[in-house]
């Protein structure tokens, strides 16, 4: 019945072509062994074929199908063309759970890796979907909060791995999605589990296809919405958790396969759910066999998951113009409360708080014995000369991130937008990675590379969204795609086991350890200039959130002002990322806290965000320096660890 329909030709052709490509590539892989002479007795070649190569190909097919099915289910139930285990943070949640358990409670792994992975991904899914439910499942809000969770989990597991690298080196390779196999155990067990979930899915296809009608229409037709949603999201999460627990995080298959299915003509939900897994299986099969061919002996260690992300994200970028996104910019949440105080009060409090934190940070520390000391007397000058640059660099970076976050949130009309999510931080990371691996320059050289990386990412984002007049949603999506790609490249570099990867990790965790006086003064100077520019653009930032049409109607040049503001946010992020790493989340927290305090207009909000962001960063640096003295926890890590959960609580508390 299904095979007869005209609109199944396209997806069928895609599956056929992908499978053909995969078969050709895998033929080249196994052909030498097959054509070799059969030696009686002990034949290593043949054993590798039977117990490593073939299971690996089978695993690729199964994992691809499972991820694609998971992605298709997410997209259908959330009615969001961008949902998949990667963008919703589900895979990253499973990964983090496995990292944490293997580090701190290795005994639990005996109880079952699947269970641990399932718990992690379920927690991530609950946070993201719960957040999305309150925003009416608006695609951008959902994907943005998914990415925040994803970034946080990914960053945390990377840093945990870095701090405990002796124990977790192999976990890292696995974490980036390696399909290497030693036996048939994994593919066989995966096959049973996936089959089980697939049967459940088959039972709910009918009610699932009614969801396209919209919430009230489908429930009036008798669909039990809440139950269906929980069931389907549960299935999708389970699939992703099984795959993650078996082979690690394999990026973007769940996004690319349904997108390919849709573009090649699959239209109805049934078609999507049938064709996506087939395309996903063929796609991962092709990718993995080509990767094995090209990488040769290195293939076992080059994680396929990272490679799929490297190829998947440009594809996503290329597909952007064809994606029809029905929801426009999410409106700001309507709040019934009046403003309680004038803007001066919170601004003054923020300023005072920031000054106190800076003073504390400059003068309080822990002595060699572990006791708390207040700086005075003979060492004052010497110690201040070491401490002051770090404190002021943290202050400048935090302030810049806060202002960049306010600009991005105002431009995109989305409260989850931040420099981390826009991919600019990832661009700077990429620059530093290249610098460390290819050139190995000093700090100034790294600086140049980071700025180049950030500006290149920004340029690609802006170029790819130029046709839409820099419409915020396109800019965000382009940023998401690029940051995923950059993350994957960094993942590949790190999984090579190169000692320079450790340097990169240290930088990513946001340590102010290497900051000296010159760097700090450059940082503060850049910060002052850029923040002044941002404050000058306050009128644009006040009016632009009203929407494109009203803004241009009062004479704001849309393309020009958006370009300038995105550029400004990009520069600030690049400069700040250099000292505090790409994962501090201060750019998300600063503007939020400012707004919560009642600073709602552009100018007060930016000033407040700068003060709060700077204060938070200095506080994180202080905590990182003193908490486990004489060891240091990087400031970026501290603020991400404390800040992101805090922010999630803040957001979930408010209705």
């Amino acid at each position, binding site marked *: 019945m299904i095979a007869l329909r005209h609109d199944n030709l396209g997806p069928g052709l895609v599956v056929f072509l992908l499978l053909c490509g995969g078969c050709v590539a895998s033929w080249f892989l196994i052909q030498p062994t097959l054509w070799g002479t059969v030696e009686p007795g002990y034949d290593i070649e043949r054993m590798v074929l039977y117990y490593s190569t073939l299971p690996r190909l089978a695993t690729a097919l199964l994992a691809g199908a499972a991820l694609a099915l998971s992605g298709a289910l997410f997209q259908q139930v959330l009615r969001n063309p961008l949902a998949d285990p990667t963008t919703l943070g589900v895979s990253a949640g499973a990964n983090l759970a496995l990292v944490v358990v293997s580090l701190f409670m290795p005994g639990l792994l005996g109880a079952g890796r699947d269970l641990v992975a399932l718990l992690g991904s379920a927690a991530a899914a609950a946070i993201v979907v719960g957040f999305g439910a309150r925003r009416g499942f608006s695609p951008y809000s959902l994907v943005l909060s998914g990415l925040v969770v994803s970034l946080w989990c990914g960053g945390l597991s990377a840093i945990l791995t870095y701090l405990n690298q002796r124990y977790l080196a192999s976990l890292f390779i696995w974490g980036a999605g390696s399909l290497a196999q030693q036996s048939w155990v994994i593919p066989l067990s995966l096959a049973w589990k996936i089959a089980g979930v697939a049967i459940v899915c088959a039972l709910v296809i009918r009610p699932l296809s009614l969801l396209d009608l919209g919430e009230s229409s489908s429930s009036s037709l008798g669909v039990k919405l809440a139950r269906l949603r929980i069931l389907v999201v549960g299935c999708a999460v389970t699939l992703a958790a099984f795959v993650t627990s078996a082979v690690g995080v394999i990026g973007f298959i769940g996004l690319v396969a349904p997108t390919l299915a849709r573009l090649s003509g699959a239209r109805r939900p049934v078609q999507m759910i049938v064709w996506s897994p087939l395309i996903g299986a063929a796609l991962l099969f092709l990718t993995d066999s080509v990767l094995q061919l090209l990488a040769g002996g290195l293939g076992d260690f080059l994680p396929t998951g990272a490679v799929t992300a490297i190829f998947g994200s440009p594809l996503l970028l290329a597909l952007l113009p064809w994606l029809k996104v029905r929801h426009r910019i999410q409106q*700001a949440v309507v709040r019934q409360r009046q403003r309680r105080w004038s803007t001066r009060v919170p601004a003054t409090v923020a300023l005072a708080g920031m000054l106190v934190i800076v003073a504390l940070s400059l003068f309080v520390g822990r002595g060699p014995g572990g006791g708390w000391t207040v700086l005075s007397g003979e060492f004052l000058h010497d110690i201040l000369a070491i401490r002051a640059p770090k404190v002021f660099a943290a202050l400048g970076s935090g302030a810049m991130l806060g202002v960049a976050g306010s600009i991005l949130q105002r431009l995109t009309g989305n409260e989850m937008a931040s420099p981390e999510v826009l991919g600019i931080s990832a661009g700077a990371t990429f620059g530093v990675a290249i610098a460390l691996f290819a050139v190995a320059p000093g700090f100034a050289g790294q600086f140049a590379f980071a700025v180049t990386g950030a500006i290149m990412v920004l340029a690609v984002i802006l170029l790819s969204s130029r046709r839409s007049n820099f419409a915020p949603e396109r800019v965000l999506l382009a940023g998401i795609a690029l940051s995923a790609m950059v993350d994957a490249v960094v993942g590949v570099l790190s999984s090579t086991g190169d000692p320079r990867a450790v340097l990169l990790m240290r930088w990513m965790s946001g340590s102010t350890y290497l900051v000296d006086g010159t760097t700090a003064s450059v940082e503060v100077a850049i910060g002052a200039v850029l923040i002044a520019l941002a404050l000058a653009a306050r009128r644009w930032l006040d009016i632009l959130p009203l929407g494109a049409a009203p803004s241009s*109607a*009062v*004479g704001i040049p849309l393309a020009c002002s958006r370009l300038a503001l995105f550029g400004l946010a990009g520069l600030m992020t690049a400069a700040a990322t250099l000292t505090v790493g790409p994962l501090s989340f201060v750019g998300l927290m600063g503007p939020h806290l400012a707004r919560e305090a009642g600073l709602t207009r552009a100018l007060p909000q930016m000033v407040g965000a700068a003060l709060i962001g700077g204060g938070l960063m200095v506080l994180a640096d202080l905590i990182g320096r003193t908490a486990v003295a004489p060891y240091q926890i990087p400031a970026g890590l501290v603020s991400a660890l404390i800040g992101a959960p805090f922010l999630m609580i803040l957001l979930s508390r408010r209705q």
Partner: protein
Amino acid sequence: MAMAERAQDAPDTTKAFAVDRIGLAIEGNAILSDVSLDFPAGEVVALVGHNGSGKSSLLKILARQLTPTTGSAAYGGRDLRHYHGRDFPRSVAYLPQDLGTGSDMTIRELVACGRYPWHGALGQFSAVDREKVEAAIAATHIEAFADRTVGTLSGGERQRAWIAMLIAQDARCLLLDEPTAALDIAHQVDVLSLVRKLAHEGGRSVVIVLHDINMAARFCDRIHALKGGRVVASGTPAEILVPETLHAIYGIEMEVISVPNLSNPLAYPC
């Protein structure tokens, strides 16, 4: 101060807008074709037509939100392409159909956004600006909730607040895209009376897109009707409200009935 005076001595012509053989095609679909219309100064002109007739697109062309594929449009005798920078928003204010909740702004702050064409991105927010904002708030009778945030207002109040922003813009011409779309009948009458008063007592020209032909007839001086992207009728309400013309506009049989208290007859489908 000098700028504020300049708004008052805009080129004095009898026509606010004049469009000449305008065509608009989006992705190959003709939205408007060969539209030539005049919009007299000081009048309230309604654009009516069925859904998808191109009336909103025409308004967007007047507001310079869309550029016509062929033909030209002029305001005050000057081609729209020859306006630069903030000249145009100083003369023409536009109210789009879908309005945001205004990002936590109070009404007064929202109305103050209308002063942007005068002070620009960096200019000082002067005493004149402040006066104009207060005057706009007074003209639309929204003093009572001027310090509440936009999100807390009801639909009718929000429309008034946005219209106040347009008035603060100090433009001689207002372009309104279905300002009554989501309002109940009492608020519709309320907003349209305000618009009519602003035009006739304030000397402004208004172009307004309306769904309801009876509302258009009651509050507007002139009606331009579009169908399938072409002009099908144009004239005073009395000239439009005849069964043949209504049939030409909406494609269904319609009758009119005269009502004692109203100057124009009422139209209804039969």
